[in-house]
């Protein structure tokens, strides 16, 4: 594997994405809604406005959390405990939905897009190996989603600490489980999803078809990732490590198999390789 080629393909794809305002503006808005707007409104409703009904509902929800999770909840008041639970335990899907949605949108178009634009011909005649092209495109699809998540996560951390911090005695976020989630659990789920999406992108005939198919395939994956990431937050450290470990194993298999999906014939769009 020539990593220079991988880096070149990834860098060029990212450069093109940076030029595509019609793509990254909506995706940034999506990230902002999940990481900024929704948490801010909900947490402010609980802490500043003292919405009794909302506090009572969240408190009921907290009751059903595993004992281990309930023991971690900090705060002296109901509002504080409810907002802590909300911030730490109930926003896990945010960390999964945003990167998976963005990376799926990028990945779905990445190989079929080369074919549609005719640039697949250039890549097919280039010295870059098909595995290098695949890896480059995988990285270029992974980075936007993961980068948005990391940035969003940073902003989310600040929002949570500013709004909920005073209720629970100071800045507390990210918790250990969130660090594990972000650095150990989310990346392999992203890789698993992209290994499937890139395979689809290599096989379908148009970007529209790739996006349709990717949507269908990634929905269950998002569901699995959501449940597992929630489990990682609720469970002990060992549970998170185990979930992440299994996900990394599945991701490795998926990526290895996915590498074979890119062929020069598919980049060229020749009929018998589709």
């Amino acid at each position, binding site marked *: 594997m020539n990593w220079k080629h991988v880096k070149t393909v990834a860098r060029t794809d990212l450069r093109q994405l940076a030029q595509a305002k019609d793509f990254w503006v909506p995706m940034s808005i999506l990230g902002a809604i999940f990481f900024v707007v929704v948490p801010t409104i909900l947490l402010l409703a609980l802490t500043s406005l003292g919405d009794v009904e909302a506090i009572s509902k969240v408190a009921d929800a907290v009751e059903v959390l595993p004992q281990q999770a309930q023991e971690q909840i900090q705060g002296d008041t109901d509002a504080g405990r409810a907002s802590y639970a909300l911030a730490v335990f109930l926003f896990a899907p945010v960390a999964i939905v945003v990167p998976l949605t963005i990376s799926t949108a990028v990945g779905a178009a990445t190989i079929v897009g080369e074919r549609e634009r005719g640039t697949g*011909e250039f890549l*097919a005649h280039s*010295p870059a190996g098909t595995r290098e092209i695949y890896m480059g495109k995988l990285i270029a699809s992974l980075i936007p989603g993961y980068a948005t998540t990391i940035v969003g996560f940073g902003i989310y951390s600040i929002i949570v600490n500013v709004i909920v911090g005073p209720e629970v005695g100071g800045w507390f976020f990210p918790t250990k489980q969130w660090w594990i989630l972000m650095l150990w659990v989310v990346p392999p789920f992203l890789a698993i999803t992209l290994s499937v999406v890139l395979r689809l992108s290599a096989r379908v005939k148009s970007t529209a078809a790739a996006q349709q198919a990717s949507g269908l395939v990634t929905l269950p994956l998002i569901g699995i990732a959501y449940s597992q990431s929630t489990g990682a937050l609720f469970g002990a450290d060992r549970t998170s490590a185990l979930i992440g470990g299994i996900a990394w194993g599945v991701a490795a298999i998926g990526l290895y198999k996915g590498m074979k999906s890119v062929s*020069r014939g598919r980049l060229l769009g020749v009929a018998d390789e589709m």
Partner: protein
Amino acid sequence: MVTNEAAQTGLTVAVRDVSRRFGDVQALRDLTLEVPTGKITVLLGPNGAGKTTAIRVITGALAPDEGTVSVFGLNPLVDGEEVRRRCGVVSAKPSLYDRLSGWDNLDYAAALYGVDQNRRATIGEAAERFGIEHALDQQVGGYSTGMKTRLALARSVLHRPELLLFDEPTSGLDPESSAAVLALIREMTAEGSTVVMCTHHLVEAEGLSDRVIILDTGTDLVSGDPDDLVRRYWPTPTVHIDAEDRSGLAAIGDLDGVLRVEPGATRTTVSVDSIDRVPDLIAALTAQGVRLTRVEPYEPSLEDLYFAVRREHRDELSTDDLATDAGTGGLAPRPDPDAIDQSAVTTERTTHRGVSL
């Protein structure tokens, strides 16, 4: 690195009996072609003749179903990276990234092809050479067709390839831009590169090609030096003659050196054993009182050759079909009334695949 095999044969590309099928479509059928080092080889053929597939097979972008391909003495399917690094390709569509600037497109290719030293200077030089340096900062999506072709050409030579493969490089260009592109191609061979150019524009191939290979339905029909091929198809000099009173030309067949006379509606075509006979012919006719209005030595062009070869190929195919039909009660073959006399050629050619000179 040129391998011993490539150095010994003097061939940069040797394709032997290659077949490639796409589903039900037979794109290449026993294709054999040779590309001599340092020459311009033109693949001539109609749309669907297999020119683009041939290029793809040469770089190893597509694997043949049957047959062998050798480029620089290497097998592109085994040493693909090495082969492709030494090739520069311009495809029929420029294959550029519209969202990127011209500079970024060139930079991408430079990085993939391993142009690491003086990359900025190399990109600048290539762009300047093809007259595109002023537009490098612009997004390629805003380029005209001519600018895109120039950028694609600049991209193909960034890494100083030994073999350049141009697939319809003047497609969509105005005549002026086409001429400029062809001049640049000529310039590149003068610098020692080997060029393979696909085209269906006969005028482009004329005068540019050192070697021409005529393809049809995925098969090479003939290949060789264009002048040699013309001589092979038209072995004797031909002159078009006309006179005020055409009856005066009736006895022309009796003159010395005249091999064949074909009276036509607007002229009489005369084949002679040597072009030196023409002045004697004129003198003899004039002496007989014939007032000549036209004496025009006929020099067959590549276009004539192309159509003659294709016509012959079609005739052979239809003859084969009819021969097959005859065995089952079909009609006997009919000669094509438009076909030119190619007896000298057809007697020398033994198979439908044609002769390599």
